[in-house]
């Protein structure tokens, strides 16, 4: 288990990626220039590298020469939408690319996908006795599969991706049912209580009155 290297000369973006990845338990190391990244790559091992293409000194494409011998999977981050740039990145051996601006779920999905394909990490999410596989969309409690509807599974994933954070009702509704649907707060409550019952998490999913829901963090013994 090695950390993820985030290379972007824009500190806010590097920080944003680190925050997002830390929510699924991926520790991150940030580099704000090509040369700093090259030094880190030489001295340390990483499970994954998120690489901005436009860097002030050594650009992302050139950095690939340092990275390739280590066999570390790479996802390019690019603000350019030109097909040439994307194709060039993939040709150079990148696993995937993410176009800026990106949404957190997209980033998480791509990172999970690459980590699993590269066999670097077990990308299943764990909470107490429940194991969730985001790719297969299955959940198991103590090794026994728990049947979940798609909406229930999306709710579970949103809670797992934001542990310890109270999620607003509106955000949950939008995440799970989409922008265009018009479900009531009642629908959310019903789904949440069914999820609680199926997983036996009556005490772990907390209702915060008038605000939303929160999945508690595990107390490390």
């Amino acid at each position, binding site marked *: 288990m090695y950390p993820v290297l985030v290379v972007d000369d*824009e500190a806010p*973006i590097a920080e944003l990626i680190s925050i997002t990845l830390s929510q699924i338990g991926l520790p991150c190391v940030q580099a704000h220039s090509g040369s700093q990244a090259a030094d880190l790559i030489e001295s340390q091992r990483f499970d994954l590298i998120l690489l901005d293409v436009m860097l002030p000194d050594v650009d992302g494409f050139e950095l690939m020469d340092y990275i390739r011998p280590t066999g570390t999977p790479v996802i390019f981050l690019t603000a350019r939408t030109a097909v040439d740039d994307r194709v060039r990145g993939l040709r150079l051996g990148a696993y995937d690319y993410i176009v800026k601006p*990106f949404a*957190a779920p997209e980033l998480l999905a791509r990172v999970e996908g690459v980590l699993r394909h590269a066999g670097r990490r077990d990308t299943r999410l764990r909470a107490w006795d429940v194991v969730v596989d985001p790719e297969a969309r299955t959940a198991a409690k103590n090794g026994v599969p728990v049947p979940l509807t798609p909406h229930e599974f999306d709710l579970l994933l949103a809670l797992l991706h934001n542990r310890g954070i109270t999620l607003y009702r509106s955000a949950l509704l939008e995440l799970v049912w989409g922008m265009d649907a018009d479900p009531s707060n009642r629908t959310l409550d019903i789904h949440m209580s069914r999820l609680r019952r199926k997983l036996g998490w009556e005490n772990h999913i907390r209702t915060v009155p008038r605000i939303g829901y929160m999945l508690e963090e595990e107390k490390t013994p």
Partner: protein
Amino acid sequence: MTFSRKLTLGILLLLCLTLSIGGAWTIDQNLQAALLRSQTQNTAFHQRERSALEQALRADGAHSTVTAARTIRSYAGELQSSVGAQSFCFSVMDEQGTTLYSSLPRAVRYETLRQAIAGGAQSVTFCYPGTSRYMVLASPLQGTMDGLWLVSVYDITSVYAERDRELRQYLLLEFTALVLAGTAAAWFSHRMTRPLRALQSAARSMADGAYDRRVPACGQAEFDALGQDFNAMAAAVESRMDALRDESARQSRFVAAFTHELKTPMTSILGYADLLRMGEQPPERRRQAADYIYHESKRLEALSRQMLQLLGLQQGGIALAPVAVRLVFGDVRRSLPEDFPANLCTDCDPDAVVLADRILLGDLVRNLVLNAANANPGDGAVHLGCHRQGDGWELTVTDTGCGMAARELSRITEPFYMVDKSRARRAGGSGLGLSLCAEIARAHGSALVFESEPGKGTTVRLPLKEGRE
């Protein structure tokens, strides 16, 4: 049909016509002369025969047709035995057309003889039965009996045979001459049109995109002039193409850079806003996210403001008025941020008045001063100067900072070009500052002149027009 082929055919046609007409005329002249010669000769023969026949008739005293006929027959018999049958053929006729005697070839028709008699003694009649040619002479026999005519027929086929031979010979000659001349003309016209073909192939390869193709000089005045004009055109097209290519490369660099400059702050703003709107983040993270959103929005706002200013400057002109440079320098000094890292040293001619827009010129100088300060000057100072330069004034902004390489100097006024991106970013640069400066200078009818050496510093000069009348 190609020009060279037309030229060859034209030359050949002209030659063929000249040779044919000339040849026909010459051969005809020869024929006429030969006919005249043979006529003279045959007339002499005819006279002699006539005299001989008249003498024979007189000697026999023939007064009737029958006796005359007998006399003539015997005369002809003598003649035949002495000189041979072929040499002399004649006929004797009376006025009514009754033939007294005839040793004429059968081919010569009776009408021809009558015609010759009707023509009289002076005339010559020709007849052409089959392939033979005959000359017919007629004259009246005088003496014993009136009304008798001697008609002689002479074979002149050989004269015409001679003409035919000449004709054949001449045709052979003409054919040979035409072949030779044709070869020469083809070679000549091919050679003459070679520059045209060179031009054609050059034009074709230019059409296929080889804009660097040129035509070699060929040594013929007209074609050389044409080739030079063509080369001049090709050079113009090529330089235009290069300019367009440069322009297009600049455009696509601009679009790529602009996209990047736009999307980078947007990524942060969207990402942190999403984070805040998802749920109750811990207070420290909430503060940090709001901070990022605020600063990145400021960056976007500055970018859009500068872009609009740039577009405005590129589209419309500005009103220029006399402005005292020391006032502009004062504006700049007041507008510098409180944490301005360098000393601003001004050295301004107090009389300096230039034709300018006070606010825009102030923006320009301020941008240059901020850039100079960001270059980490060794003595911690930015030198601002204004001195007389010819009829006008020259503003200078000098620093002793890190300087730039020549390769970078040519591109620093390009939008979003940053020599050191990370440092420019920390200093709040959007990459549009120098583009704006260059545009403002252009609006003042001037241009920025950069002089820089890595490690030694940079001087920017701006020549301006005298503002006093």
